[in-house]
Each structure stands twice: as structure tokens, then as C-alpha cells.
């Protein structure tokens, strides 16, 4: 599986390189754009926390291209893709904008995105990300940042329960044992061993499915993997945590979000990604946090996901938009983002600045990306079966229905959704 992934990644990279070369002869996608280019372009993104960093990037970009005026449009994530859909329908998309994995193929397959030019060299980014942002052999997104999953833990809670800290090579059983022991010993205080996000798969169940040797979606994106024995095993692991009280129930996690349990010392561990870093750095438990890799199931695995900057096909100032995308995909922009603590940059070798922002070992995330990361599962209309996941899986995790039954229903629904694509 892993080898196949690598091969696919390499093929994609090569294809993207070729595409980049050929587009040199086309209209303005070349690496050497005219630096006196005069234009006004828009840049849309959703994270207001990253706005200062994005503005710093624009300022630096203007040193190279003084006559391109970049206007930012910040829309909260809840409305971001609703707005983009409307803009996409009326061909008024922003010139350059943030894209995420679940939505990418929808835009690429509808011909709304411009493939990256030769200014973006896929060799500079993790292969899984190039693959995530490629469609029909062409790469459309310049990877911006990435996140993998690890286990943050609070040493103070471990000490209080008298449980040994996790080790780097721990297994599912060891993880479960520790979680259970903490829940049992600190029951009077209402403390749980682990509390992680169960709505959406990225934080927990995509990982456990992959660790059990299953898959969420077939590699050609046509078939659901939920009904395989291995996938069911991955889901069952999550159910077991809830069943014996190692973790709060989905209802409890809906009432009080996972990060709140952890930050308020009501849980000892949380499975989460690089994005939690900034919040933890500002939290009251900052001094007692440590980070461990995900425990091993049948094998070690994590999903990797990242954002990309894309250019709209219908951009009226495409040359300027491409120049900006190229800048954002470059090394300097990656370093700026990392230093400002905005995100873990995707550009190879620039993560050091990000790793230095925290006292815990952020290298674990980088190592996960390099050694055992699997691309985030997507298809053309990811939103449709993401809804099915959210509709059905809570019943499995809460124990309302057997995991295997739910998994089979989910696979059926997901296959129906995939057939419509």
C-alpha cells in the first residue's frame, strides 16, 4: 500500500512537472513573470488567526512585485465554502484562495481551478500533499501547510493518577490501558483518560482505521472501505474506549469540545494535530504538556492533510495570480509562516522554525509525515459522504448499534454517494 502510494505520488509529481513545462508556452503561467506587472487581485482565506501572517506575506510579495495590489477576504470557515460555491457558480471566484482536501476535487473536476505552473516544483513538498491536490494527473494546488496527528498528553494528570508516561513505540493496548487506568483512578474528579474529536475522522477514526490496516476509501476513489473487517476493527477500537469509560461519550464531546476537556485538565490525552499547537501554547497547562506519536495498531499510521493555495481558472489577472501563488508556494513564504507560528509549512526543510515554537517535541509531527502518513481520504463530493459519517457513526461509538452494522450501512450509503459523482 505504502509503496503504491509513493509510486503514485512520484507519477503525479512527474506529470505535474510535465504539465508545468508545457504551460510555459501557454499564457503567463511561466516562472519568470514580469516583475513590473500591474494588477489588482483578491486573496481569500478563512482563518482570522493567520491574517497577520498572510498580510506579512503580501508585504514581502510586494517587494518583488510592487505593482500588484492584493486584497484579502477573510470569511469564517463555517461560511467559507458556501460563499465559494456561490462565487464558483457565477464565475466570480477570488483570484487566489485557500483550498482544503475535502473540497478540492469538487472545484478541480468542475474546471474552476488553474493547474499550477512551472513556478511550483512538487519536489519541494511532501508527496501526499501533491497527491491530495492533483486531479486527473494535474496538480492544481501549491501546498501551504500540513498537519499530521499525534497524542498530546498532560504530565500533571498522569502524575496524579500515578500512570507512566507514553513511550514512542507504544501500542493500542498500552494506550487503552493507560487511558482506562486514569479514568478509573480519577473518576471522582470527573477526569477521563482521553478525549478526542469524534465528529469527523481526521483526529481519531481515520487513523485507527488505517492503523488496523483498513481504508476509508479505495485508492481510485470509487468505493467505500468502511465495510472491510480491518476498518471495522479500527472503529471498534474507538467504541471500546467509550464503552469502558476511557473516553467521554460522543454526546459529552458534543456538549464540551475535546480541546476544552484537555485544557481544563479533565482529560489526560488528546489525539490532535499541529493546528492545536497555538491554542495549547496559550493554555494554562502549557508547562505540563508533552507530545507522543500515535500508538501502533497493526501498523503505524496517521492521515496527513494540508491546505493549498489555488488560482481560479476565471481569474481576470491570471499572470498576477500565478505570480502570487508561486510566491506563496516558495521557501521564503513558508519560513515566514513558520516563524509567525501561523502553521506548519509544507515546503520541505522549512519546518524547523515551527518546531521551535513549542517546548514539546513537534518533530513527532514532521516524522509522522515523512514515515507513516497516508493522504486524507477524499473524492469528488467528499461533503456528501462526510455527512453520512456524521449521521451514522455516533450510534456506533455510543453503543446504540453494533459497530459492524453501522459500518456496513455507512459503506452502503457512501457507495451510493460515490456512484452519484
Amino acid at each position: 500500500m505504502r509503496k503504491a502510494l509513493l509510486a503514485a505520488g512520484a507519477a503525479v509529481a512527474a506529470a505535474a512537472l510535465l504539465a508545468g513545462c508545457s504551460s510555459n508556452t501557454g499564457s503567463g503561467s511561466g516562472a519568470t513573470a514580469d516583475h513590473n506587472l500591474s494588477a489588482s487581485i483578491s486573496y481569500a482565506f478563512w482563518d482570522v488567526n493567520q491574517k497577520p501572517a498572510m498580510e506579512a506575506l503580501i508585504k514581502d510579495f510586494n517587494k518583488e512585485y510592487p505593482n500588484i495590489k492584493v486584497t484579502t477576504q477573510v470569511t469564517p470557515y463555517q461560511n467559507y465554502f458556501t460563499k465559494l460555491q456561490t462565487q464558483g457558480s457565477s464565475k466570480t471566484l477570488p483570484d487566489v484562495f485557500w483550498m482544503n482536501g475535502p473540497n478540492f476535487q469538487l472545484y478541480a473536476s468542475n474546471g474552476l481551478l488553474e493547474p499550477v505552473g512551472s513556478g511550483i516544483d512538487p519536489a519541494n513538498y511532501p508527496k501526499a500533499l501533491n497527491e491530495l491536490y492533483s486531479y486527473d494527473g494535474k496538480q492544481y494546488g501549491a501546498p501551504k501547510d500540513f498537519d499530521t496527528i499525534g497524542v498530546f498528553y498532560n504530565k500533571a494528570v498522569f502524575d496524579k493518577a500515578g500512570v507512566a508516561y507514553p513511550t514512542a513505540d507504544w501500542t493500542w493496548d498500552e494506550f487503552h490501558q493507560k487511558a482506562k487506568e486514569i479514568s478509573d483512578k480519577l473518576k471522582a474528579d470527573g477526569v477521563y483518560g482521553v478525549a478526542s474529536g469524534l465528529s469527523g475522522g481526521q483526529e481519531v477514526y481515520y487513523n485507527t482505521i488505517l492503523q488496523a490496516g483498513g481504508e476509508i476509501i479505495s485508492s481510485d476513489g470509487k468505493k467505500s472501505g468502511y465495510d472491510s473487517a480491518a476498518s471495522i476493527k479500527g472503529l471498534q477500537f474507538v467504541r471500546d474506549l467509550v464503552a469502558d469509560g476511557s473516553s467521554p461519550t460522543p454526546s459529552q464531546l458534543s456538549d464540551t469540545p475535546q480541546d476544552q476537556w484537555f485544557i481544563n485538565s479533565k482529560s489526560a490525552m488528546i489525539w490532535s494535530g499541529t493546528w492545536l499547537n497555538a491554542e495549547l501554547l496559550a493554555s494554562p497547562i502549557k508547562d505540563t504538556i508533552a507530545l507522543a506519536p500515535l500508538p501502533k495498531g497493526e501498523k503505524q499510521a496517521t492521515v496527513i492533510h494540508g491546505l493549498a493555495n489555488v488560482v481560479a481558472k476565471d481569474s481576470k489577472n491570471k499572470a498576477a495570480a500565478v505570480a502570487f501563488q508561486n510566491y506563496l508556494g516558495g521557501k521564503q513564504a513558508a519560513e515566514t509562516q513558520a516563524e509567525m507560528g501561523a502553521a506548519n509549512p509544507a515546503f520541505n526543510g522549512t519546518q524547523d522554525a515551527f518546531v521551535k515554537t513549542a517546548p514539546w517535541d513537534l518533530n513527532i509531527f514532521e516524522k509522522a509525515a515523512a514515515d507513516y502518513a497516508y493522504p486524507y481520504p477524499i473524492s469528488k463530493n467528499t461533503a456528501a459522504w462526510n455527512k453520512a459519517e456524521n449521521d451514522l457513526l455516533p450510534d456506533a461509538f455510543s453503543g446504540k448499534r453494533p459497530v459492524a452494522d453501522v459500518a456496513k450501512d455507512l459503506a452502503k450509503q457512501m457507495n451510493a454517494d460515490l456512484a452519484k459523482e
Partner: protein
Amino acid sequence: MSVSIAPQEAGAVTTAPATRSTPPRRRRTDRKEWLWAALFVAPLLFGVLVFYIWPIIRNAYFSFTTWGVFGGATWSGLSNYQAMLADPSFWRSIVNTLVYIGFLLIGIPLAVVFASLMNRPGLRFATLYRTAFFLPYVAMPAAVAMVWRIIFNGDFGVINYTLSLVGIKGPNWLSTEWFALIAVGLVGMWISLGFNLIVLSAGMKGIPPEMYEASSLDGASRMRQFFSITVPLLSPSIFFVSVMTVITGFQLFDLLYALMGTQNPAINQTQSMVYLFFAHQQTGDNGYAAAVGMAILLLVGVFTIIQFRMQKRWVTYV
């Protein structure tokens, strides 16, 4: 408006004697009046046409199409309606919406009682009470929901803490089937109380005080006065409030969305019809969403007609 038309009428009258026998002239005056009326109504009518009627027509059309994320609607006949009628979550959303409306309707008798208490002559702090009850109605539902989320929290909320003092382990109100609907219904009832109170208080001010004086001379108790004078004379206001309540109840979305969120494990068993509309729109299933929209329109129409039919039996117009 009638004031500005008056001079025209006067002019018509002065010229009338000369042409009394010619009706066409008279019709032209009518037309002129009609034109003026139309002119004044036009801006509003334009707004209603563009922002209400036209979207409804478009929505009706789209409900017969398969409409992808980025437009490109293709005619698909009744397939959306067939899918909708076969979808258990559609029927559940109707039940949920009706239960929610039930909660709001229970709030109306409460509002009548509160309004009559607040309208007692010589009540101290009357303005304070009125403000306190009306505040939730003018506050943003999202902000109100934020506070209630904390109150309803299963592990750390005030309600469950209070229950735990008497040895009851409270549920996760906002994320358990049925309990979530009760919680949303209670908050909805609490919000709507303010609006109902204002309307009903205004209605009560219109009841002549002599009625109360006369009845108390006849020895009627306060209770008797409430049921024999206040309620019947208030019935037009109560009718208005209940029609409005049913219509706003059908529109339940923002409160539910803000209280529960999209990732809630109980949202499927609690979603309202409008929520179902948005959920399908979010996943690029716009044709289906349009069909749900038509179902909402139909149900609101039916319930409003029923209410207007039934009013003859209980509403007293003086």
C-alpha cells in the same frame, strides 16, 4: 396616501357636472387614482416580487431539477419529491418541527397570564418586568444560544448540577435524542414570550376598564374576570399571536443550529425542516433542498388556513 389623492378627487368633482353623462371620463379618474395607488405601492411591491415571489417561483422550478453544486440544473421531474417522501429524516423533521411549534404554542397561555399580571394597575417595577421579558426577543439567537449551551451542558451545566444535588443524573440535554428537542423547545418558548407579551399587553390596554369595574360590582372574582373578560376580549390578539407563532415555528433554524451545531450526534433526530433544507444544500443537493422548501411552504399555508377557518369558533371581535 389618501391625503395626497384628495386634491385629485376634488378636481374631478369640480369638472364632473359638465360631463356627468359620460362614464368613460369617470373611469379615467378611476384609472388615475389606481395609477397613484400603484405608484405608491410599487416600491414595496417591487421588493416583494423580486425578493419573495420570484424566488418562490424559481424554487418551485428547481425542486423539479437535479441541481449540482455549481449550478447546471437539469430537469428530473418528480424524483426529488419521491426521494423526499421516501426519506425517513424528512418525516422526522416534520415531527420535530411540529413538536417545536407545540412548545411555542404552550408559551401563549403563559404569555396571557404574565401579561395580565403585568397589567395589574399599580404594579411596581412594571417597566423592569417588561424589559426583562422582552430582552430575549431582541437579543441575537446566536448569543442567546451560547448562554443556553453552557446552562444545558451535560457535565458542567447549571441544570444538571442542580439535579445532581437531589441525586438525579441529568442527561446530555443538547446531544441526546428527544431531550435535545425539549431543550430547543424550551429556549424557543422563552424567546417568543417577549414578543407575545408585548402584543398581548397592547391588546389588554384596549379592554375598557369599566368592564372590570362593573364586574367587580357584580361580585366577580379576579379569576372570573380573567376568564370571562380578559381572555374573550383578548382573543383577536391571541389569534394573531398564534398565527405568527406557527409561521415562525416552521422557520426554526438559527436557534437549533446555534444550540446544537452540525456535528451533534443527535442532530439527525432533532433537525427541523429548514435545517434539513440547509443540510442538503450544503452537500450540493440543491434540487432536493428546493423540494423541502416547497414542503415547508405547503405546510405553512395549510396550517394558516386551518387557523383562519377555526378562528370563527373562538375569536370574539367587539
